[in-house]
C-alpha cells in the first residue's frame, strides 16, 4: 500500500508535473487567466491522463518496443478527440474559451511522459492511480495559477463558472475586491510567467523548510587507515 502512497506523493508534490517537471507549460500559461478555464483544462487533461495510462498499461505487453511511441500517441489522440467532442457537446462556452488548447492536450508532454515512464512498466491499477495523481497535481497548479491571475486582474474568482458547470453556477462568482483599474499584466502571458516563477519559488521555500525539520542523518567519520607499520 505504501507504494500507492509514494505514487500520490510523487504526483501531487515531489514530482509535480507543473511545478517540478515543468511539463505542459504552453497550456499551463496560456489558459490560466481565470479559474474556470484552468479547472476546465485541468479536468480534461486529467481524464485523458487516466485513460491513456490505463490503455497504455493494458497493451504494454503486446506492443513491440520499436513502435511504442506511435501507438501511445494514437491512443492519446483518440482520447483527446473523445474529450474534445464531449466538451463541445456539454460545455460549449468552455469549448470556445479553451480554443486550440483543448486539441493541443495531445501534445502535452505530461501525458506521453507518464505513458512512457510509468504506464508502460506498471499494472493498469497502478497506472490509473498514477494518472489520477499526476492529473490532480497538474490541475492544482493550474487552478492556483488561475486564481492568482484572476484575483489580480479582475478581483473575482470563478467568473464564468456557468460555462463549465451549467447554469446553476452562474451565481458562483465571488467578488474578492473591487478594481477600478484592472492589473492588465496578470491577464497577459508575461503575468503568467511571473506568477509561475513565484509559485515555483514558493514550493522551493516550503521544501527547504521541510528539509530543515527533518533530522539529518549523522555522517560516519571515516577512520584513517594506517598503511605503514609502526614499530
Amino acid at each position: 500500500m505504501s507504494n500507492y502512497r509514494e505514487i500520490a506523493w510523487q504526483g501531487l508534490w515531489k514530482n509535480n508535473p507543473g511545478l517540478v517537471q515543468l511539463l505542459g507549460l504552453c497550456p499551463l500559461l496560456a489558459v490560466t487567466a481565470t479559474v474556470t478555464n484552468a479547472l476546465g483544462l485541468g479536468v480534461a487533461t486529467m481524464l485523458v491522463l487516466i485513460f491513456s495510462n490505463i490503455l497504455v498499461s493494458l497493451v504494454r505487453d503486446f506492443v513491440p518496443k520499436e513502435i511504442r511511441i506511435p501507438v501511445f500517441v494514437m491512443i492519446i489522440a483518440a482520447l483527446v478527440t473523445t474529450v474534445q467532442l464531449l466538451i463541445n457537446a456539454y460545455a460549449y462556452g468552455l469549448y470556445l474559451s479553451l480554443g486550440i488548447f483543448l486539441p493541443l492536450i495531445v501534445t502535452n508532454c505530461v501525458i506521453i511522459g507518464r505513458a512512457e515512464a510509468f504506464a508502460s512498466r506498471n499494472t493498469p491499477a497502478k497506472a490509473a492511480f498514477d494518472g489520477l495523481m499526476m492529473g490532480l497535481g497538474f490541475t492544482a497548479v493550474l487552478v492556483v495559477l488561475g486564481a492568482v491571475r484572476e484575483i489580480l486582474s479582475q478581483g473575482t474568482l470563478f467568473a464564468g463558472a456557468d460555462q463549465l458547470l451549467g447554469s446553476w453556477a452562474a451565481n458562483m462568482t465571488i467578488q474578492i475586491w473591487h478594481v477600478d483599474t484592472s492589473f492588465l499584466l496578470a491577464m497577459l502571458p508575461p503575468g503568467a510567467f511571473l506568477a509561475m516563477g513565484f509559485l515555483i519559488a514558493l514550493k522551493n521555500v516550503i521544501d527547504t523548510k521541510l528539509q530543515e525539520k527533518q533530522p539529518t542523518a549523522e555522517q560516519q567519520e571515516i577512520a584513517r587507515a594506517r598503511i605503514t607499520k609502526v614499530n
Partner: protein
Amino acid sequence: MAFKITSSPHVTKNSQTATVMQRVILCALPGLVVQCVYFGWGSLIQVLLAIAVALVAEAAVMKLRKRAVGVALGDYSAVLTALLLGIAIPPLAPWWVIVIGTLFAIVVVKHLYGGLGNNLFNPAMAAYVLLLIAYPVQMTTWVAPAPAAQYSPDLLASISQIFLPGSGDINLFRLGIDGTTMATPLDTMKTGLSMGLTSTEVLAKPLFDEGLSIGWFWVNMAYLAGGLVMLKLGAIRWQISTGMLAALFICSGIGFMMNPDTHGSPVFHLFSGATMLAAFFIATDPVTAATSNRGRLIFGALIGVLVYVIRQYGGYPDAVAFAVLLANLCAPLIDYYVRPRTYGHRSGN
C-alpha cells in the same frame, strides 16, 4: 616641500559606485527641473515618492537577504533607479502606479536576480514596461506642456491628482490652447501619420513650434547638457551615447530622405520623447550594458536602431524602454563576440 613616496598606482580616480551614482543623479537634476517647468510639480512628486519607496524596499530586501542594509542604501543605486522611473512616467499618474513600478524594479528586477551588479535588465526600464503593459491608460495620459496648455496644474492640483486619483478631471490638463486633447509629440506624430497626414502637417499642430516639440525640446536639451557634464566628469563613457544617437540620426535621416511626408525628421527624433534621457542616463547603466569599448558602441547603436524601428513601425509611440530591454538581452552576446585582444596575444583567440 615633502615628497611622499608611494607605490603605484600614482594616478587614482574616485570611481566608487556611490560617487558615480551621485554624479549621475546630480546631472539628471537640470532635466527634472525643466520637466517641472513645463509639466508642473507632478514629476518632482513622483520622483520623491519613488525614492522613498525604493529606499524602504531596498532596506527590506537587504534585511531579508541578511546583507548589510547601510551599504546598499549608501550606494545611491536605488535612488537612481527611482529617479529614472519617476522621470519617465507621466507627471500626474496616480500614486499607486509609481509605487507598484518602484517595488517591481527594486524587488523583482534587481534583487531577485542577485542585487546590484547582477541584474540582467535595467530595473527602471523593466518597471516602466511592466507599468505600460499593466496600466496603458494611466501611462499614456501626459499633461500638455505649459506654453501650449489651457490649464497648467499648480502644486495643489498636482498633489490632488496624484494622491486622490479621480478627484478632478485629469483630461483638463491635457487640453491645448485650442481646446483639443494633446498627446506627447511622438504620439501625435504616430497618430497623425496613421491618419494620412504628412509629417509637415503634423508639425503645424499647436503642440509644435517651428518644427520642434514645445517643452520636450528643452527637456531633451537639459538632459543633453547633463549628459555632457557627466562625460566631462568621467561618470559615463562616450561610446554608448554616441552609438545610440548616431544610429538614431542615421536611421531617421535615411527614412526622412526616402519619404519626408511619412517619416519624422532626424531633429524631431533626436529631441522628442526620452531620446536624450535614454542616451546618457538609461542606456549607460554599467551593469546591464556591454563591457568593452567596441561592444558599447554596438550596444548603443542597437538601441538607436531599435528605437527608430519601434517608433516608426511599432505599436507604441516611444520605444526607449523596449529598445533598452532588448539590447540588455543582447549585451552578453555582444560581449562574447567583441572580446578585446589580450596584451601579448594575437586577436581572435
